[in-house]
C-alpha cells in the first residue's frame, strides 16, 4: 500500500498549497477524508465522470477542495482549472457547483442531500437501466444528523441497492463541537446495520482496511456502509482533532510547518 500512501501525501501537499494560496478554511475536513478519496480515485472508481462510468457523490460538500486536489492528481481536473480555486469567476468554489464538471455530478454543501441523490443514481443503474455502474457517496458524521440521510438509507435498503456504497467520514467533530457532545449519533455502525446496510467499521486512514472494506464479499443484495474512523486534520499534527481547523486559513509559518511535516513523513515512506 506504499503507493497509496505516496499518492495521498502528494495530494495533501497539493491540497495545503491550494488552501494556503487561497487563504481558505475547511482544511481539517479535507484532510480527514483525503485518504478515502485517494483510494477511491486510485483504484476503486472506474471511469469516473465518463458516460457509463462509476459515480461519486460528495455529500460532505465542504470537503470539495480535497476532491478537487484528488481529481487533479489523477488527471481528472486540469492544473489551469485548479489554479482558479476559490478565485472570482472559478468553477471550483468552496462547495461543488452544479453541473460545472462531469466528475462532480451534483452540487452539495447543504448536508443531507448527497445520499438521496446517490440512492436515485443507484436505483437508476440497478433497477431502471441495469448496468455495472457503482455509486459511492461520502458523508460526514455531521451529515448523519440530517433526517433525509435516514430516509435515503431506508430507501436504499428497501430497494436492495447493492451497487451503492456509503462511506461515513467519522472524524468526530462538526461545525461547533464534538459530534458526541452536540447530537450523539453513536453507535453509528449499529444504526446503519439496523437500517439494512452491510456495515464495516474501519480506520479511514489505513489503506489496507479501506481496500478490504470496499472489496470483501459480504451479501449480494444489500447496500454497503463503511464507518471510516478518521482524524480531522490528519497528517498535520497541530491541526489534528482541532475544531478551529474547520474554519481557519493557514498563516505562512503554519503552512511552512505543515509542509515540513509532510516532507518528513515522505522520507519515512
Amino acid at each position, binding site marked *: 500500500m506504499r503507493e497509496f500512501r505516496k499518492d495521498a501525501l502528494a495530494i495533501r501537499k497539493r491540497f495545503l498549497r491550494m488552501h494556503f494560496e487561497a487563504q481558505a478554511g475547511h482544511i481539517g475536513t479535507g484532510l480527514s477524508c483525503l485518504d478515502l478519496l485517494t483510494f477511491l480515485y486510485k483504484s476503486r472508481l472506474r471511469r469516473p465522470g465518463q458516460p457509463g462510468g462509476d459515480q461519486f457523490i460528495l455529500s460532505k460538500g465542504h470537503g470539495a477542495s480535497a476532491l478537487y486536489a484528488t481529481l487533479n492528481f489523477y488527471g481528472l481536473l486540469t492544473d489551469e482549472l485548479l489554479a482558479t480555486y476559490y478565485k472570482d469567476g472559478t468553477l471550483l468554489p468552496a462547495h461543488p457547483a*452544479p453541473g460545472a464538471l462531469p466528475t462532480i455530478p*451534483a452540487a452539495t454543501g447543504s448536508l443531507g*442531500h448527497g445520499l*438521496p441523490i446517490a*440512492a436515485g443514481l443507484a436505483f437508476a443503474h440497478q433497477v*431502471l437501466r441495469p448496468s455495472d455502474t457503482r455509486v459511492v457517496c461520502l458523508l460526514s458524521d455531521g451529515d448523519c444528523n440530517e433526517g433525509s440521510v435516514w430516509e435515503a438509507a*431506508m*430507501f436504499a435498503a428497501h430497494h436492495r441497492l447493492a451497487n451503492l456504497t456509503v462511506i461515513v467520514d467519522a472524524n468526530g467533530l462538526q461545525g461547533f463541537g464534538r459530534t458526541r457532545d452536540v447530537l450523539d449519533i453513536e453507535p453509528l455502525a449499529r444504526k446503519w446495520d439496523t437500517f439494512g446496510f452491510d456495515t464495516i467499521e474501519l480506520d479511514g486512514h489505513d489503506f489496507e482496511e479501506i481496500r478490504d472494506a470496499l472489496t470483501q464479499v459480504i451479501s449480494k443484495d444489500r447496500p454497503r456502509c463503511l464507518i471510516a474512523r478518521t482524524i480531522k486534520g490528519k497528517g498535520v499534527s497541530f491541526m489534528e482533532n482541532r475544531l478551529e481547523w474547520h474554519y481557519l486559513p493557514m498563516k505562512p509559518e503554519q503552512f511552512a510547518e505543515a509542509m515540513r511535516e509532510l516532507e518528513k513523513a515522505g522520507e519515512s515512506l
Partner: protein
Amino acid sequence: MRVDFTPAVHQALADDPASVFITGALGYNALEEVAAAYGPRFLNAGVAEQNMVGVAAGVALAGFRPWVYSIAPFAVYRCFEQLRNDVCLHRLPVRLVGNGGGFTYGIMGSTHHALEDLGALKTLPNLELFFPGTNDHVAAAVRLMRDLPGPAYLRLGISGFASARAPLSENPRTLTRHYAQGSRVTVIGVGHAVQIALTALEQQDLAALGVDLYGISRFPFDLESDAALVESVRKTGTVLVLDEHYRAGSIAESLRLALPPVPYFEALTARYEPSQRYGSAQFLLRQSGLTPEAVREAILELRS
C-alpha cells in the same frame, strides 16, 4: 383535476420511455393503473419527501425524466431545499405535481392547504410553473411539461366554485385562455381561481359589466406571446386578478409588476382566518372573500 391528470400522465409515460413516476405514498384510487402499467418505472418512495426529491434528482442525473407526485403542500414545503439545490440549480427534468392547490383539500385543514406553493416556487431558478384553470386544461399542461428540458411544477386543484366553459381562444404556448370579450375591466383568473370568475359570469351577469376575462396558467409569463391580454389591460386600464393563494408571493403580485401600469388594479387573494374555522373549499373561499359575488363587487368598485 386529478382525474384528468391520471390519463394525461399515463400517456406521457407511454410517450417517453425515459420517464418514471415517483409518488410520495399518495395516489390511492387514482394511480393504480399507472402503477400496474409501468413496473419499476412507477416508484412509491414512501412518506419521505426530501428523499423522494433527492432520488428524483439522482434518477434524472442518470438520464431519466421523473414525474414526482404528492399533495401540493407535501410536494413543496418540506423538500423545498431539495427542489432548489438538487433539481433547479442542476436544471434537471424533474416534473413535480402537487395535487390540491389552494383550498382544494378544504375540511382536511390548514396543513393540507397550499396557499404558498406558487409563491415559494416562483423564486426558484429554472423552474416553470403550470396551474391549469379547469379540468379540461390539465392534459395540455402535462404535454408541455413532458417536453421541457428542465424542471417544472404542476398545481392541480378543485375549485370551491367549480365551473367550466369553452374558451374563445387559447394560447398553446402559455395556456392562457380568453373566456369573455369586454372593454371595461380585464379580469384575470390565476389557475383554477378562474372558475370563480366563470361562476360569476354565469350568476352575476358580468357580461353587462364589460368584463374581458382571461385565465392564466403558466409562470414565468410570456407577455409577448400573450399580446392580446396585454392589449386588453392597456385598453381597459382596469385589472382585477383572482388568485387562490396568499397575497404575499402571489402570481397576482407578479402580474402587477409584469403588466403595463394601470390606474386601477385589484387582487382578490386567499388568507388563513385567525378564527381558525374550517370547512369546504367553498366555505374557505367565502371566508377569504374569493366569491363570485365579491368579483362583481370588486368590478363595480374598480369601475367607480
